């Protein structure tokens, strides 16, 4: 059984309380809004890519601690990286969070390994991956993305009563 407490580690709580790169950017080269219809949470991601490199990135939105910390740590991880590097990281993060790869097998994951625990919490995986989905949507000029989108590998109907 997963130790749920391990998910709410200091680093996640800290990024939740003091999110980095929080806000919007005036003239982003890429922008997207991500929705999690299960809880009504949404975040925006603004990116400035210049000559293939992420010069600036910001996010904003109402969300749970897992989502906010994931977004905050995503921005600090990809800032200054090339778009290709960021895309590799997106794939690794999605694979780790959905339990397809263990974090040891994600060479670029680094401190983002604190999110490995969500793979044991099916209802919380979507919270962690929403920012990464949204960044991916921004890169691919999908203005609005959703964790419930058809093409989402995590798409799973979750009932509500």
């Amino acid at each position: 059984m997963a130790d749920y407490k391990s998910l709410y580690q200091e680093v996640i709580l800290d990024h939740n309380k003091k999110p980095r790169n929080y806000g919007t950017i005036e003239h982003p080269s890429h922008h997207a809004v991500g929705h999690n219809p299960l809880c009504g949470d949404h975040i925006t991601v603004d990116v400035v890519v210049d000559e293939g490199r992420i010069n600036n990135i910001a996010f904003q939105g109402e969300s749970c601690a897992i989502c906010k910390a994931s977004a905050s740590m995503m921005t600090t991880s990809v800032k200054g990286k090339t778009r290709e590097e960021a895309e590799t990281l997106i794939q690794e993060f999605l694979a780790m969070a959905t339990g397809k790869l263990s974090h040891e097998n994600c060479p670029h994951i680094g401190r983002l390994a604190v999110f490995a625990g969500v793979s044991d919490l099916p209802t919380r995986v979507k919270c962690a991956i929403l920012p990464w989905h949204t960044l991916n949507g921004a890169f691919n000029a999908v203005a609005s993305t959703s964790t419930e989108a058809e093409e989402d590998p995590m798409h799973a109907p979750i009932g509500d009563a």
Partner: protein
Amino acid sequence: MSANQTTQKIRSTSAFDVERIRADFPILKLKVNDKPLVYLDNAASSQMPQQVIDRLVYYQTKQHANIHRGVHYLSEVATSEFEEARRKLQRFINANEDREVIFTSGTTEAINLVMHGYGRKFIGAGDEIILTTLEHHANIVPWQMLAEEKGAKIRVVPINDAGELLIDEYEKLFNDRTKFVGVTHVSNALGSINPIKEMIAFAHARGVPVLVDGAQAAPHTKIDVQDLNCDFYAFSGHKLCGPTGIGILYGRAELLESMQPFKGGGDMILSVTFEKTTYNTIPHKFEAGTPPISAAIGLGAAVDYLSAIGMDAIAAHELDLLKYATGQISSIAGVRVMGTAEHKAAVLSFAVDGVHPHDIGTLLNQEGIAVRTGHHCAQPVMQRLHVPATSRASFAFYNTMDEVDALIAGIRTVQKIFT
């Protein structure tokens, strides 16, 4: 008097033997994350006592066959047990006749049945349907589908900040295009108990029929459909200590008779030729195909179980739990209760400052406490309260004051983690 003494006093107002009742529910002995399960998600679905489990096993071991069609022994036994279950449900809600009790798959299907059977026949372009802000999506979406198909209009009764319907506004919504009212007896998101008897009388004075969504009321209070004088009353078995896949639509006989069938198939017909089909009488007209026979019989056993305890005793114990929990939770700084209606069922929706409901749900689960977090399929309520979601503890008669204490301690732990 110290706070402790007050607590003692509040905790001992009913002589309800909750420990004896808990012994009937095997699932309540579970441990979750090495902690005793504290199940506070009863508004989503309740747990099943051994008596109902045993009834299901007995049926499958000794009584199963298809109903209403065979002349052999088992078919006769199954048919008579199924119809006996219908009569148990009839008594449970004090319906005038057993043919007014239709087995459906749940509240959702019951409401859809009324939308198709009544709405599509009697509601047309320009007609108006009154619903309330407190409705579950199950009592919104079918009517939206109908309104779209027919060009009808939906009018919505607003609520105040406490989560109470504004009855003056309800009355003002009526005009000569008003053809139908759909209202929830108890709000699943906030617990508000609506004054449906008065609302029904007002609608009837204008010749308008009323459907009551009783999904959250039937498990917690005595229902008397004749006293309420409602036209339709819908509820689900799985919130009533019964199985999933079964629910009830009560309908007044003359209304049911005037309606068109919902689904076509076997059992709902008297005769079929390719030229003409004659429909069966009610309730069978609305029960096409083989029904969930075991689930219906299980639900019959569940209402026997609840009636033996007594719905009044159940309601009294739950009110004690609600009062104690509300008092305790209100004493925590930074916690806000949503839904403070004067008349409330044992549903406690709350928000903790600075902590998202999903984080609360995950952290309480770590303590073995099951609460619901989200919009509770009642997004209009959430929009009205300007929150995306809440955390909701919903109590049943088998919950204890100690479990309330566990919830309160759990919320304090959550706050500690987030400070």
